[in-house]
């Protein structure tokens, strides 16, 4: 049995937060789906509100402080990521975007990701498709097909197209991608002995 690491990035600001609530539902569904496929899961939650000032500091200083670096390492080193944002002004929140802005541009290459968003109205329901997917396409991550959007009214809904069904389907899709893969390896250490010799660099190779 393999133990998987699941990093959950939640950009909710209030407490309790419907964004975090959705993140927790997706986490539970993914953990259950992975268990059904024979994998254990370690869950690590990154609440971006706790790093709001750290992120602003990183923008001006160019480096992550210890607390933010630990959060970045958690996400970059995970087998899969669940990324959940509230919709602000028709898109992901600035706090959510800032976290992904300060990652190295290749930090999430090939990373299975489940995208989700919350809003006060169903009229924002395509924000995942027109805002979040292009961001993760740029990062060359692997978002699963189902993005889970929850408006306020979804927390009361029912029937087979209801939120619970979408949560389970998305968790299953993420588990499908993760369970067939070798366990995540840490990113390549830039200070390991180089594979390209300096002579090769000199020769333009």
């Amino acid at each position, binding site marked *: 049995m393999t133990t998987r690491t699941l990093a959950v990035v939640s950009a909710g600001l209030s407490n309790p937060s419907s964004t975090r609530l959705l993140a927790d539902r997706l986490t539970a569904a993914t953990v259950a789906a992975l268990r059904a496929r024979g994998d254990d899961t370690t869950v690590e939650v990154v609440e971006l509100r706790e790093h709001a000032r750290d992120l*602003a*500091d990183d*923008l*001006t*200083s*160019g*480096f992550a*402080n*210890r607390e933010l670096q630990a959060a970045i390492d958690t996400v970059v080193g995970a087998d899969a990521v669940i990324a959940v944002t509230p919709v602000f002004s028709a898109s992901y929140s600035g706090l959510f975007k800032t976290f992904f802005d300060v990652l190295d541009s290749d930090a999430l290459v090939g990373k299975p990701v489940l995208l989700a968003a919350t809003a006060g109205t169903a009229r924002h329901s395509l924000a995942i498709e027109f805002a979040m997917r292009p961001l993760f396409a740029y990062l060359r991550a692997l978002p699963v097909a189902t993005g889970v959007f929850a408006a306020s009214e979804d927390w009361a809904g029912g029937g087979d197209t209801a939120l619970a069904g979408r949560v389970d389907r998305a968790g299953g899709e993420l588990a499908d991608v993760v369970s067939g893969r070798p366990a995540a390896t840490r990113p390549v250490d*830039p*200070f390991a*002995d*180089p594979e390209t010799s*300096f002579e090769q*660099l*000199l020769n*333009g190779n």
Partner: protein
Amino acid sequence: MQFGIFTVGDVTPDPTTGRTPTEAERIKGMIAIALKAEEVGLDVFAQGQHHNPPFVVSSPTTTLGYIAAKTDKLILSTSTTLITTTDPVKIAEDFATLQHVADGRVDLMMGRGNTGPVYPWFGKDIRDGIPLAVENYQLLRRLWREDVVDWEGKFRTPLQGFTSTPRPLDGVPPFVWHGSIRSPQIAEQAAYYGDGFFHNHIFWPAEHTERMVEFYRRRYEHYGHGTADQAIVGLGGQVFMRKNSQDAVNEFRPYFDSAPVYGGGPSLEEFTSQTPLTVGSPQQVIEATLGFRDYVGDYQRQLFLMDHAGLPLKTVLEQLDILGEEVVPVLRREFAALKPAHVPEAPTHASLVAAAGGSKDATVYAPADDVTGSTAEGVQA
């Protein structure tokens, strides 16, 4: 161990008065700072290279040549010389000339530069930063070491039968450092050639410095230049001092708060706890600087950034008095006592000449001068 100062040559308003110096004031101020560095017993003055406002350091060897004439002992260096966008032929010529002018008191630090538009202004692409640094530096080395160079590369027009003049003083090129904050390829380059590696060691946490230096040392040994602890390491650092540390904090805070690289982000207190920036008493600066050795090992050169963020010239000169009188003598003594005998000092012109088996005139005479008709034999006779 060598101690000195490095300047980026920025023209920045003094936030406490709102006054911005003129370019003339700033250039003359930098020269005054360099002369003060020699007066208070420092070893090195290094200046940056920029090609855009608010900087006045587009022509480093002009300023360094003047300083050379006004000083006797000071080593003149750069922080950094843009190896990516400056023609390596021009670097070879300028700094060989400076060697002759300054009787060998010259070395250089190569850097790539991080001002995006400078690359297109000089016909280059910032995405080629590393390949440019690799190719241009290899050419620069050949121009100093081979009297006649045939060369063809990717980034510069080819050279056939080219002799860079004047030849290096005593036949010995200046020592070269390579500066980089976080590109292991540049530390690798320094290690490959057995050159020095410099980490600017300001603005960022010391962990970055530690990893880069450790990597450089390991690779220096790999390439057979000596053991890892014999590699040639230089560090930057930024300090502001007053007798009472709270006075230093109070006086420096407005400069910190409005500095382009600091303002609007983490507080002065956060920056001093997370990065090597030290604002306090001379004793605090001594303790902090001695602590650098804990994570980079015994090293050869320590440069301080002193004239940053619009600090007035008078204040900078006072800071240099404190540095030269109260801080550096203690650091010299303490570092020397800690350094094992097998760890070398930073190479100087004299040590490089000695290592080359003595000085030799390297003049390359033209076979026949088109204007005068004289030949090399005729000139030598």
